[in-house]
């Protein structure tokens, strides 16, 4: 019964929260009454036109593809390296400085260097994104690895779990909250970087397009494109991350 109410509430609450946000926006727009903050309806209209013309779907698709590829690479590599550094103090001592350096090299610099060395190719763009995102994943997963439960690791060791088995059954479930944090804030970060990457060296994608709108100070289009992307992420959240979360945390009391 309780869960029943909760489920019912959850959808209602979600709708309510979106409505409230929309309300605030509408209010703010009518107060500002300026083109720099267009009305929701206007943005929706722009969105519809851009979708119908096929322009938005095209650029969105291109960007999402880049996002998918670079995100996957960064997550897989990042988790592997993060776990390694978290477990091995010597490796960690060695690579820690590299990490701080790569974490803090401005996206701009890596992007320029990638483009200049590898040409304005798709691979260079993706490499640039990966280089920017990777240190973040590593840092988060390393923190998670350091916080692993020693008792359970000892259990695995005494029952002679091999490395892979230990990772799958003992380590990975504990890393789950950290992986989730890295995923959620990571999608956002990659998106931020991809915008710069596309701005500087691609002739398509959301970043390229948003910059054009910025030049024209076309805030409605900026917002329409933004919300198209946000909607995709929201879908990923609902269809992928949320169920994953639920499945992974089923056991918690």
């Amino acid at each position, binding site marked *: 019964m309780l869960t029943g109410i909760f489920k019912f509430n959850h959808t209602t609450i979600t709708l309510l929260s979106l409505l409230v946000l929309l309300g605030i926006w509408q209010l703010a727009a009518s107060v500002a009454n300026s083109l720099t903050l267009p009305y929701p309806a206007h943005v929706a209209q722009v969105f519809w036109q851009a979708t119908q013309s096929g322009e938005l779907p095209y650029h969105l698709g291109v960007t999402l593809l880049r996002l998918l590829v670079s995100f996957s690479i960064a997550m897989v590599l990042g988790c592997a390296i993060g776990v390694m550094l978290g477990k091995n103090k010597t490796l960690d001592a060695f690579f820690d400085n590299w990490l701080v350096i790569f974490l803090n090299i401005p996206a701009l610099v890596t992007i320029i260097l990638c483009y200049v060395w590898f040409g304005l190719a798709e691979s260079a763009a993706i490499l640039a994104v990966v280089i920017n995102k990777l240190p973040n994943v590593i840092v988060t997963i390393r923190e998670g690895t350091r916080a692993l439960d020693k*008792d*359970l690791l*000892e*259990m695995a*060791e*005494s*029952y*002679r*779990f*091999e490395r892979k088995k230990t990772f799958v*059954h*003992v380590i990975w*479930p504990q890393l789950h909250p950290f992986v989730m944090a890295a995923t959620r804030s990571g999608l956002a970060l990659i998106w931020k970087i991809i915008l710069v990457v596309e701005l500087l060296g691609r002739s398509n994608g959301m970043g390229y397009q948003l910059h054009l709108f910025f030049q024209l100070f076309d805030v409605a289009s900026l917002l329409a494109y933004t919300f198209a992307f946000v909607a995709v992420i929201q879908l990923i959240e609902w269809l992928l991350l949320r169920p994953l979360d639920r499945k*992974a945390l*089923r*056991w*918690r*009391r």
Partner: protein
Amino acid sequence: MNDITISIQDKTYRSGHLDDRQHQAIADLQLGVGRNEFVCLLGPSGCGKTTLLNMIAGLDSHYQGHIRIGSQAATAKIGYVFQNPRLLPWYTVRQNIEVVFAQTPPAALIDALLADMQLSDVQQVYPERLSLGMQRRVAIIRAFAINPDILLMDEPFVSLDAPSARQVRNLLYSLWQQRPHTVLFVSHDLREAIALADRLIFLSPPPMRIISDIPVNIPRELRNDEAQIEAFREHLLSQHPAINGLL
């Protein structure tokens, strides 16, 4: 022929990072455990029993000395019932048992053990939704199920009510008779120890040494008789004044 040969000169814990506290847990301990022997370790809280079991299980190698395990060496299957259950909270009871098998888990054996431990009903439940005593029983099944060559048990029967404890003891005993293996067993309950063990090893407060090593010579078939156990206990207390303070 010994199955486990323990010869430890020194086991000292050094506390981590900042403070420099040192604690010598074990100093000069020599102990041989025969193949398929059933040995019970008794000693005051904090004397180093868990430390010793961890070292035997290969979880701790920061000590001076050596521990040799039979001829099979590294391949010996070890079942370890830790002092706390150490179940994987994200797996159900059954998954927790199945996960320790390298090959296909023996479904029939697991079913039987679950039934013996009265846990058949909860095999699909997650550990955090079990009582501590139930979790302990799962941990015991996990150790039994792999048919270990060496079974290490760190106070396995606490949190169990008297009938359950009795039943688990009987189960352990019958498994051991069906398929003999070496058992090292920590307990604070002298009666329990006498009822189960071939040998009682009494340990000193830290640094841990062996105070007495006493064979239990009650025939196996009489071990269920409370009077026999009481008699042996009385005898023990009178004959070994050194361990008197420990009991």
